[in-house]
């Protein structure tokens, strides 16, 4: 996929046309996609999320979250919905965009054999939607064996190579830290473009899956402070070349999984920058009320001191 120019690739803040951000969740059968989606819905915190699933397999939504069930739509507490798209994702997305009010976020749970990058590409051509990133789950216990399988090995490898963020799931099932690290370095070698996020029972902060709202919003305190993520907000960004800044955040070793910012260039023009994994984008935006950059990363990985050097002093830091 890589960096694309021209068309807004990331959802803008209020400054840009309000494209609905779409996160694509991929990964093989049993990698934990459904568990993560349910965790996300439990911590939607007012965000109206539409989940699109290939089929209502073994129902993808925990029963206690369901408010009403229709033939191809499930109403979920908090104003979220889940729809089945069968074989026609594009048609389902077009239908979603016609809802009033439209959802704040769309999450596509791709089928276990789908190439998430292909799904992501199909979003790029739909007016009104913008990809917020590709999150691929990998079952830490099984992914290496799966990658060797005669039938599905190449599928697994291609799925990983499509990821911006790889969620290394079920780390609690591994014997020790060493084993977890071994899987992570294998994943990183398979997918050098991706940032790796370890998780237990799908507890990934919503901001990592959905994308950041930007520095104007307060970071959501996590109900699972043990999840081990940290977010840093910066308000006084030194004058910079926005695209260079975005590139550094995405590709240098600051430990940033996602970043989003509103800032100005030397001429005083307003910009929106976003990064996910090692991908980044800088777009001209309209003037925002509050400039600044928010970064999210694993606690301990996020290089606060180095980020100060780049972005000025942090005004807030929260564990999420």
């Amino acid at each position: 996929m890589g960096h694309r120019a021209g068309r807004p690739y990331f959802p803008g803040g209020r400054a840009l046309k309000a494209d609905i951000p779409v996160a694509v969740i991929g990964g093989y059968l049993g990698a934990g996609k459904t568990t993560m989606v349910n965790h996300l819905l439990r911590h939607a915190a007012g965000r109206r999320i539409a989940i699109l699933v290939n089929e209502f397999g073994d129902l993808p939504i925990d029963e206690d979250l369901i408010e009403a069930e229709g033939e191809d739509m499930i109403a979920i507490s908090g104003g979220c919905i889940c729809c089945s798209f069968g074989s026609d994702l594009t048609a389902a997305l077009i239908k979603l965009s016609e809802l009033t009010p439209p959802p704040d976020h769309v999450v596509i749970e791709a089928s276990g054999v789908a190439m998430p990058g292909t799904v992501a590409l199909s979003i790029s051509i739909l007016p009104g939607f913008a990809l917020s990133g590709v999150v691929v789950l990998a079952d830490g216990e099984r992914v290496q064996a799966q990658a060797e399988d005669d039938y599905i090995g190449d599928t697994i490898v291609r799925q990983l190579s499509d990821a911006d963020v790889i969620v290394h799931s079920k780390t609690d099932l591994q014997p020790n830290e060493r084993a977890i690290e071994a899987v992570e370095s294998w994943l990183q070698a398979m997918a050098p473009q991706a940032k790796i996020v370890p998780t237990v029972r799908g507890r990934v902060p919503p901001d990592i899956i959905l994308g950041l709202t930007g520095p104007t919003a307060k970071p959501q305190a996590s109900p699972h402070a043990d999840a081990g993520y940290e977010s840093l907000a910066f308000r006084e960004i030194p004058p910079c070349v926005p695209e260079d800044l975005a590139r550094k955040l995405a590709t240098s070793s600051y430990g940033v999984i996602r970043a989003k910012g509103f800032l100005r260039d030397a001429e005083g023009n307003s910009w929106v920058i976003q990064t996910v994994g090692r991908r980044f984008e800088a777009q001209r935006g309209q003037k925002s009320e509050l400039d600044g950059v928010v970064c999210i990363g694993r606690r301990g990985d996020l290089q606060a001191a180095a980020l100060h050097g780049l972005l000025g002093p942090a005004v807030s830091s929260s564990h999420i």
Partner: protein
Amino acid sequence: MSETIVYSAKKIITMNPSRPEATHVAVRDGRILGAGSLSELQTWGDVRLDERFKDKVLMPGFVEGHAHVMEGSLWSKVYCGWFDRADPDGKLWSGVKSVDAVVERLRAAEAALEDPAAAVSGWQLDPIYMDNITVTRADLDRVSTTRAVGVLHASGHIMNVNTKALELAGMMKTGHNHPGIPLGADGLPTGELKGPEVMTPVGPFVGFERNLLDADEAGLRNFAKLCVRTGTTTITDLASRMDEDTVDMMLRVTSEPHYPIRLMPFRFFLGLSAPELVETVLAMKKRATDRLRLGQIKIVVDGSIQGFSARLRWPGYHNGAPNGLWYIAPEHLSELLHLALEAGVQVHTHTNGDQATQLVLEKLATALQAHPNPDHRFTLQHCQLADAAQFRLAAKLGMCVNLFANHHYYWGDEHYNLTVGPDRATRMNACRTALDSGVPMAIHSDAPVTPLGPLFTAWAAVNRITASGRVQGEEERIDVSEALYAVTMGAAYTLHLDGEIGSIETGKKADFAVLEADPTACDPMELKDIPVWGTVQGGRIFPAAEL
């Protein structure tokens, strides 16, 4: 008591090995009372002799085990294919051989449109035969700049559209970064849209709004006409999404007194979990009628060979393309096979590549140990690249194969030169090996991918000629009698209908293909050219000339 009618014929080819030929056939209540001589049939008592077929050759009504009702639906659009093709009304459309010819044909259709907002839609364009020329939006702008114009390729996976269509879909802009949207020097889309994801947003503006897997009423009627014209009396729709409304419509239309075919739709596997799918199909089975045989499942395991999306075993694609795509996870396939065997629901699986075929064989072998069923007849559809070992295993497991004989003619050269190379192209759709391995075999058109026509399909399996005129895989040719068996009893067997149809013998449905000449007496190269007078279906007479 009901009337007994005895039809005389120049010859009746029965496909009943104990009495392969007859001169007369007696019909009562839409079923065959017997086939033999007039005096033999007169032993049934009062009979009325009907001599309308005395100069015709009767065969069992042909059975097409793999087609799609979409063939009927597409004829509401403009035919833009390379080969001559007959429409449901019997008009022969000549193949278009250049982009100019495509434009000219679409312009003629455009001129006939009254609604100024109506789109012009074409289908079956196949640039493979035009040196892979690219059709651009500028070409289609010559058809209209005020109407949306779209032409679907024969592959079903590429569409060409004009500027207006791109504008309506909001895609007429720079900055696209998608392999399915080629850009011109100006940075704007060329109008070629590759892949379903990029076609869908434009589809509604160019007349392809419906999911093509859903039968529509007009399409269902057109489909039936094509069947009569080709001697087909029983046919599948493989597969259909079959929502409630579609099933109601299909039940209504097929129950009309003059609806001439028996239709067997297979429920497409996507959209429901495995247990729900099996449950849904079982419920549908209860609504089945003689002319609408509900209650089967179609699973698509991989993609297509010419689209490089079929799953191949080593050494993969001849041109080095990466292996294709799975459309179902092996675990999901396995679950469905288990549940379907347990519930007694028949499953047909689309596998083009030999790795996909191997996966089905392995998963079914395991599922059969859990749920033994000696007569399941699960069928490998297409199964184009299977080798002898796979055919032997399929036979052992009680599977059937339905090989894509027509494909060999239309894309055989492409496979030889590009996709799989000479060796494997030569053994593609290996009918001889399949029969010698003892696996029950049918052959098919996959209409609309290739035109419906069981006699053509038989011709393709007998001669193995490719579009360029080469015989490709002489050793895999089969006899005329074997090919005729494949398009009657062979296909009936794969559908569990061999006790009801497929041969002309006592007790079976009075389903006949009425032919103007004897397919067993002609030069095998002329098999495809035998004129079809029409059909008899369930004792009802359908002359093609009166459709």
